[in-house]
C-alpha cells in the first residue's frame, strides 16, 4: 500500500486548501483527502480471497501497473513488454511474468519509486513472492505445498533420511563378497531402486505441476512453433534475461556483473556432465557388461569428476553471492530455498568426488552412502525445491517467444 507522507516542514507546509473541492493535495491535508492514493484503491480485488493464500496478488498487480504506466525499464528484460501486453494483470498474467523475471534486479536499482519511496515499487521482490505463491499453487500433490514452502526442512529430512537409510542397509546387509567395487557394499538392484523410485515420482509430480502452470499461463491461441522453441532454448542457454540488456545483473548491489549468470551456466554444465557420466556408466554396465568402478581415464570418471568439480565451484560462487547480496530484491524464504538446493547439489558433488578419491579405502562404504543418499534425495527434491523453476521458466520463455513472433506478424 502506498503511504502518504505526512511530514511537513514549516517552510514548505501547504496552507489549508480552500474547501471547494474534496481533492486536496495529499501532503497538506491528508485527513481531508478522501481520495488519497491510500484510499483510492478499488474495494473489490479481482481474485478470490481463498486463492490468494499468504501472497497478496493485488499488491503485485499494483506494482506492475505502475511499471505499465512508466515503462522505463523495458530495455532490461522481457518482463516489461510482456506486462504491457497484459494490462489486466490477472493471476495467470502475474504467474507468467513472475517466471519471465530471472531476478536480475536491474529494475530495482533503476527505479525512481523503489523503497523508501512511498510508492514502494520493488519488482524483483514482488515477482519472487509471486513465484513462491505460484509454485505452491501448482505443486503436485497439493498436500505437499508445505514441503515446497519449507524446502530447507524438506531437503534436510530427505537427504538425512536417504543417507541414514543407506547406512542402515550397509550395516544390516553383509558385504557381498562375490561382487566387486561398489556392489560389494550396495547391490545394483538396491541402487537402482533408490534412484528409480524417487526419480519416477518426481517426474510424475513435475509433469503435473508444469502442465497445470502451462494451462494457466499459455495464451489461448498460442501455437508452439519450432522457431519459438529454438529461440526459447537459446534464451535458456544464454540466460538472456539475466543480462540487464547487456551490462549484466546487480548481483550483490548497484554494480553490474555477469558473475551470477556465468555461475548459473557453469552449474548447468556441471550437472549436465554428471548426468552424461551416469548415463554412460549405465550404458557400459548394461550394454557392454563393463562393471564399475571404471578407470580414471574413462568417460564416466572424467565427466563425473569435471562435472563434480564444476558443481562445487559454481555452487560455492553462488552461495558467496547469496551471502553478500542485498536482500531487498528478494525474500528471506526464497533466499533460504536457493541456499538449500545449492547445499544439496554441493553435498552430492563433494561426496561424489570424495568417493572417487576414497574408493579403494575403508571409507568407501560411508562415502557411497553419502553420495547415493544425496543423489536419491536430489531426485526426490526435484518438484519440492527451487529446482522446479526449470520447467516454469522454460514455459515462460516459450510463451514470450510466441508472443513476440505474433507481434511481428
Amino acid at each position, binding site marked *: 500500500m502506498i503511504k502518504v507522507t505526512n511530514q511537513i516542514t514549516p517552510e*514548505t507546509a501547504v496552507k489549508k486548501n480552500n474547501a471547494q473541492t474534496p*481533492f486536496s493535495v495529499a*501532503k497538506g491535508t491528508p485527513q481531508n483527502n478522501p481520495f488519497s492514493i491510500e484510499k483510492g484503491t478499488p474495494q473489490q480485488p479481482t481474485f478470490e480471497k481463498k486463492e490468494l493464500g499468504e501472497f497478496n496478488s493485488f499488491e503485485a498487480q499494483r506494482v506492475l501497473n505502475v511499471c505499465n504506466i512508466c515503462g*522505463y525499464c523495458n530495455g532490461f528484460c522481457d518482463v516489461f513488454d510482456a506486462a504491457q501486453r497484459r494490462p489486466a494483470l490477472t493471476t495467470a498474467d502475474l504467474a507468467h511474468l513472475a517466471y519471465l523475471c530471472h531476478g536480475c534486479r536491474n529494475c530495482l536499482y*533503476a527505479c525512481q519509486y523503489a523503497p523508501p519511496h*512511498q510508492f514502494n515499487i520493488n519488482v524483483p521482490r514482488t515477482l519472487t513472492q509471486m513465484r513462491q505463491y505460484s509454485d505452491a499453487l501448482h505443486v503436485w500433490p497439493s498436500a505437499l505445498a508445505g514441503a515446497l514452502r519449507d524446502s530447507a526442512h524438506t531437503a534436510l529430512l530427505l537427504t538425512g533420511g536417504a543417507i541414514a537409510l543407506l547406512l542402515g542397509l550397509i550395516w544390516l546387509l553383509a558385504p557381498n563378497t562375490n561382487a566387486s567395487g561398489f556392489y560389494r557394499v550396495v547391490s545394483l538392484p538396491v541402487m537402482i531402486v533408490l534412484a528409480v523410485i524417487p526419480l519416477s515420482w518426481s517426474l510424475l509430480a513435475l509433469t503435473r505441476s508444469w502442465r497445470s502452470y502451462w494451462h494457466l499461463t499459455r495464451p489461448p491461441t498460442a501455437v508452439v512453433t519450432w522457431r519459438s522453441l529454438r529461440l526459447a532454448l537459446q534464451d535458456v542457454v544464454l540466460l538472456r534475461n539475466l543480462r540487464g540488456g547487456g551490462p549484466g545483473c546487480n548481483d550483490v548491489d548497484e554494480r553490474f556483473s555477469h558473475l551470477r549468470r556465468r555461475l548459473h551456466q557453469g552449474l548447468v554444465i556441471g550437472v549436465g556432465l554428471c548426468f552424461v557420466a551416469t548415463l554412460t556408466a549405465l550404458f557400459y554396465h548394461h550394454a557392454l557388461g563393463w562393471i564399475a568402478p571404471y578407470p580414471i581415464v574413462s568417460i564416466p570418471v572424467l565427466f563425473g569428476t569435471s562435472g563434480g568439480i564444476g558443481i562445487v565451484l559454481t555452487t560455492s560462487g553462488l552461495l558467496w553471492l547469496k551471502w553478500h547480496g542485498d536482500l531487498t530484491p528478494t525474500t528471506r524464504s526464497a533466499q533460504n530455498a536457493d541456499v538449500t538446493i545449492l547445499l544439496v547439489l554441493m553435498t552430492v558433488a563433494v561426496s561424489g568426488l570424495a568417493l572417487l578419491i576414497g574408493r579403494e579405502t575403508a571409507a568407501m562404504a560411508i562415502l557411497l552412502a553419502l553420495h547415493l543418499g544425496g543423489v536419491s534425495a536430489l531426485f526426490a527434491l526435484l518438484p519440492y525445491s527451487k529446482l522446479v523453476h526449470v520447467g516454469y521458466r522454460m514455459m515462460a520463455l516459450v510463451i514470450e517467444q510466441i508472443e513476440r513472433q505474433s507481434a511481428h506478424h
Partner: protein
Amino acid sequence: MNSAPLVIIGGGAAALCAAIAARQRGASVLLLEQAPRWQRGGNTRHSRNFRITHDITPLSLGIYSAAEFRADLDRATGTASNPALRQLLVDESATLTEWLAGAGVQLQPVTAGRVPPSRRTAFLRGGGTAMINALYARAAELGVMIRYDSAVTGLQFEDGRVIRVEVGRGAGAWSVTPAGVIVASGGAQANRNWWRERWGAAAAGVVNRGIPHADGAVLNLLLQQGAQAVGDPTQAYLVAVDARSPADDGGIVTRIRCMPRGLVVDAHGQRRYDEGGDTASTRYARWGQRLLQFPGQVGYLLLDARGLREAPPALVPPLRAPDLAVLAQQLKIPVPALRETVMAYNAAVQPPADAAQALNWHTVGLEPPKSRYALPLRERPFAAYPMRPGITFTYHGVGVDMHLRVLRSDGSSFENVWAAGMVMAPNIFSSGYVSGLALTISCVSGRLAGEQNPHL
C-alpha cells in the same frame, strides 16, 4: 586534500557531468548533494530521454540536424535570452551520447524495438535513475568526494569571488573554502513559498511532480549577491496530474493523459476548453496551465465505459458511478449542472460520414466545442479522474556567459562561480518545452562548466 576543492552544489545530471568533467581534468572535486543518498539525482531521477543533434545512429531514428533542433526550440519556446548559448547547446548536444556512454551511462538502441520510437531524442536504458547511478559510480571511481544530505545554506563572497561555502544547519553545520563553485542546484519547483508568492492561494492546489529538495535556496543566495536574474519568475511548467497524487515526487506515473476521450469539467460542472483540440503530447502541459486557473485548481476528466476501455492504465483507478448523479455527488459537483453539461454535449455530437473514425466525431453549436473524438458519453458506468496542475520546473535562473560563468546584474561576471543545469536553463529557454530538453541542457552545460576550470 592539499588544494582547495572545486565545489559542486547539486546532485543531478548537471552536477555529475560537471564533477566528472572537472575531475577528468585533474581538479579535486567536492560534490554536495542536498538529498539523502536514496533520493539523490535531482529530477534526473524522473527523466527518460534527451534531445540530441545526430546523424545516423543506433540510438535514434533518422537524422536530426542542428538547424532543425534550433528551429524546434525557436518555435516551441520562443527566442532565447542568450541565443548564442542556445546555439552552443544545440551544437554540443551532438557529442553528448558518446560522452555519456564514456561515463558509463547505458543508452537504449532503437533497434531493440522497445522504446517509443524517437527521432529527436535518445533514450536511457532504465531511465534517469539508472543514469544517475552510473554517473555517481563513475564520479566515485574518479575520486570525486561526494557528500549526501548536504544542503548549502550560505555563500560568502569577497571581491566577486566565493570564499566560503556553508553547508548544513545546526550542530551538523560545516564550511569549506572552495577554489571555485559550480552551481547545479536546479530550479525552485519544490518550494511552496515560491509558489505562494507568485500564485497566491492557487499555490495550495498544486502538486510537485519532482523531488522535494529543489527549493531554489542557492539560486536565491546568488540573486541576493547581485547575480543577474533571467527567465520568467512568474511561470512554471505544469502538467495535468491525478489530484490524488502525493504532494512530491510522483514523477511520470501521475499524469492524466486521456482528455481527448472524455470531457473536462470544473468544480461547477462546466466545460471550459476543447478536449479534442490538442491530441499530441503537448496537451499534458496545456491542461496543466489551464488547471491552475480552474476554481480550486481542480478539474475532472469524465469518461463513460467506452472511454474508460480506451484509457491507458493509471496510477489510481478513477472514481466510478452507475450514473451521472451519483458521480456528481462523489465529486461534490452540483448534480443538475453536470447533467446539463453532459446532455448539452451529447446533443451537440455530430457523427462523421464514416462513424468508425472516432477522430472525426465533433460537436456542432457547442461552446466550447469538442473538435475531435466527440463520441457521446452514454455507456455506463461513468467515471472521473480528478486532476490538478503538477509543477515540473520553474523558468527562473541566473544569467551566465558563454563559459557558463555566472553574471552579475552589471554585466560583469563572478570570478569563480559557474552555473549548470536548470538553474541556468532560462538563458536558453524561458517558456514552453520540448521533450528531452532539460536533460540535454543539464548534461551539456554540466560538462562545459566542468571543463572551464582556470581555477585549478
